[in-house]
C-alpha cells in the first residue's frame, strides 16, 4: 500500500534525523556547565526551552557576562527562537487536534521536526514525521544533555580542554547551512563586524543584540535579496 510506504519512509527519516541531532546534546550539556550553569540548570534548559540555537545563545551570553547579563541573554535566546513561530505556521495545518496535543506539538516545533514533516507528501506521513522526530529528539536531546553536563562537570577547567573554542564551532555549525544565498552571507558578515567593533565598548551580551539590527534593516529593505 502506497499510504503505509509513505508513513514508513517518514518514520525512517525521523529516526535518522532524530538520532543525529540528539547527539548534539552532549556538546550543549558540556558547554552549558562550562558557562557556569550547574547540571540541574542545564537539564532544565533542555527540558523547558528545547530549541538548540536559543539554548546555546543563552549559555553563551551568560558565559561572557554571568547572571548580570540576564536581560541580553533572555533577549538573544528569544530572538533566536522567532523562527519557531514561522515553523509553527507551517506545521499547524496538519497537527490539528485539541489543545493538549497542540501544546505538546508547540514545544516540539523546532528546525528538525519542521524539516522532516514538511518534506512528506501525505497527511499521514507528515504527522508521522513530526511526532516521531519530535519524540526521538526530545528524549535523546535531554538524555545527551545530562551526559554532556556530567562530563563537563568532571572536566573542570574548560579552557584547558578547548571547550570555549568548541562553543564557537557549535555556533558556526548552526549557521553554516543558512549561508546558501548572498543575503544571509552579507547579514552574517555585517553582524560579525558590528559585534566585534562594539564588544570593547558595551557590556557582555549587548553587542550580540546590536548585531540583530543588521538583520532587521536588511530584512525590511530586502537589500541583496532575491527578487
Amino acid at each position, binding site marked *: 500500500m502506497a499510504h503505509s510506504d509513505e508513513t514508513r519512509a517518514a518514520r525512517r527519516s525521523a529516526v535518522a534525523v532524530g538520532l543525529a541531532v540528539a547527539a548534539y546534546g552532549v556538546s550543549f550539556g558540556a558547554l552549558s556547565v562550562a558557562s557556569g550553569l550547574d547540571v540541574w540548570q542545564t537539564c532544565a534548559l533542555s527540558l523547558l526551552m528545547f530549541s538548540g540555537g536559543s539554548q546555546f545563545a543563552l549559555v553563551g551570553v551568560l558565559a561572557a557576562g554571568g547572571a548580570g547579563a540576564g536581560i541580553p541573554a533572555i533577549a538573544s535566546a528569544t530572538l533566536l527562537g522567532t523562527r*519557531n513561530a514561522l515553523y509553527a505556521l507551517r506545521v*499547524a495545518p496538519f497537527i490539528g487536534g485539541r489543545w493538549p496535543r497542540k501544546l505538546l506539538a508547540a514545544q516540539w516545533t523546532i528546525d528538525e521536526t519542521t524539516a522532516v514533516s514538511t518534506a512528506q507528501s501525505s497527511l499521514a506521513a507528515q504527522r508521522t514525521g513530526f511526532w516521531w522526530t519530535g519524540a526521538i529528539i526530545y528524549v535523546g536531546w535531554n538524555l545527551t544533555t545530562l551526559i554532556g553536563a556530567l562530563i563537563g562537570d568532571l572536566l573542570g577547567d574548560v579552557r584547558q580542554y578547548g571547550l570555549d573554542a568548541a562553543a564557537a564551532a557549535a555556533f558556526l555549525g548552526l549557521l553554516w547551512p543558512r549561508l546558501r544565498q548572498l543575503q544571509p552571507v552579507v547579514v552574517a558578515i555585517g553582524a560579525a563586524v558590528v559585534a566585534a567593533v562594539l564588544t570593547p565598548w558595551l557590556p557582555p551580551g549587548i553587542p*550580540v543584540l546590536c548585531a540583530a539590527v543588521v538583520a532587521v534593516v536588511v*530584512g525590511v529593505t530586502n537589500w541583496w*535579496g532575491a527578487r
Partner: protein
Amino acid sequence: MTVWQIILLASIAVFALKIAGYLVPPSLIERPTPSRVANLLTVALLAALIVVQTLGQGQQIELDARVPAIIVAAGLFALRVPFIVVVAAAAAVAAVLRLSGAMP
C-alpha cells in the same frame, strides 16, 4: 536576576513564540518581510555569537587558540564533516595549542 529566573523567563519566551504560530492567523506572519526578518535574525545572532565566543574575553578582544580552532572548524564544515565531530575537533585544536604552549 538569578540564573534560575533567567532560565525560566527565557524558556517561557521561547515557548510563547512556538505557540504563537498556532494561535496567530497565518496572514499576520506569513508575509515576505516578517518571514525574511525572522530568518535573518537567526543568521545575525549566530554570526555575532561566533565572534564574541571566538574573540571576546569579557569586554576585551583577544586573539588566542580559539582563532585557529574556528578556522579548522570552518574548513571541516565546508567538507561536510558531521557537527559533533567538528565541535570535538575544534576543542582538540585549541587544547593542543594551549597544552604545547604555542598559543594562550
